[in-house]
């Protein structure tokens, strides 16, 4: 499999993830807002995060769409997914009550499955960053 094809597939997977979860969150806005409001760590920032998170995911997906901005997209994906994974682990270890703020079918995953799912995508983002770094963007 060529490097370019692999990068295309990696970015397509991340685009799918971000577009799907962001649209699911926006479609289920009321539930998402309540879930964030109940989250013990981010209650104060919920009014901002409720919009910033899905919009940020769409922006990252936009970066991943174009070869020229794809590296930034991979970096941002790595950052966001790592942040979310740390948040999940912290919630599992420190919080008594853990509402799920994820979108679409992901809300049916168990917490441990969700962490594994996130780690897989963090690894995919890392591979993307490492490969894209050495790859000349398509003109």
């Amino acid at each position, binding site marked *: 499999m060529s490097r370019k094809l692999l990068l295309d*597939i990696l970015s*397509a997977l991340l685009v799918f993830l971000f577009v*799907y979860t962001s649209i699911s969150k926006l*479609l*289920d806005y009321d*539930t998402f807002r309540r879930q964030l409001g109940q989250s013990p760590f981010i209650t104060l920032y919920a009014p901002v995060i409720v919009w910033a998170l899905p919009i940020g995911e769409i922006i990252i997906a936009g970066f991943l*769409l174009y*070869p020229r901005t794809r590296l930034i997209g991979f970096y941002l994906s790595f950052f966001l997914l790592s942040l979310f994974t740390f948040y999940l682990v912290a919630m599992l270890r420190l919080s008594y009550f853990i509402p799920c703020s994820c979108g679409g079918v992901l*809300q049916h995953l168990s917490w441990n499955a969700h962490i594994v799912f996130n780690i897989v995508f963090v690894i995919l983002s890392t591979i993307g960053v490492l490969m894209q770094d050495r790859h000349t963007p398509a*003109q």
Partner: protein
Amino acid sequence: MKKTLSLAFFAALCAAGSAFAGKMKADTQWMLNDDTIVTGTSTTVKILYCPGPNNVQCAVSLDGNVTIIRKT
């Protein structure tokens, strides 16, 4: 570039379609402890009708008999 763009755009289109299709799909019906019937996803029912620690049964799905207990 065109091929790259089409693959990523195809993924974006599929994701958007899946999200909208999931939203349009009929939600599960749940019976609360007071015998009230409500409709929604398990997360929605948990948030709206069963807040707090999950150490007691709060609602039962009428379709699959799945109780909403996530953490004891």
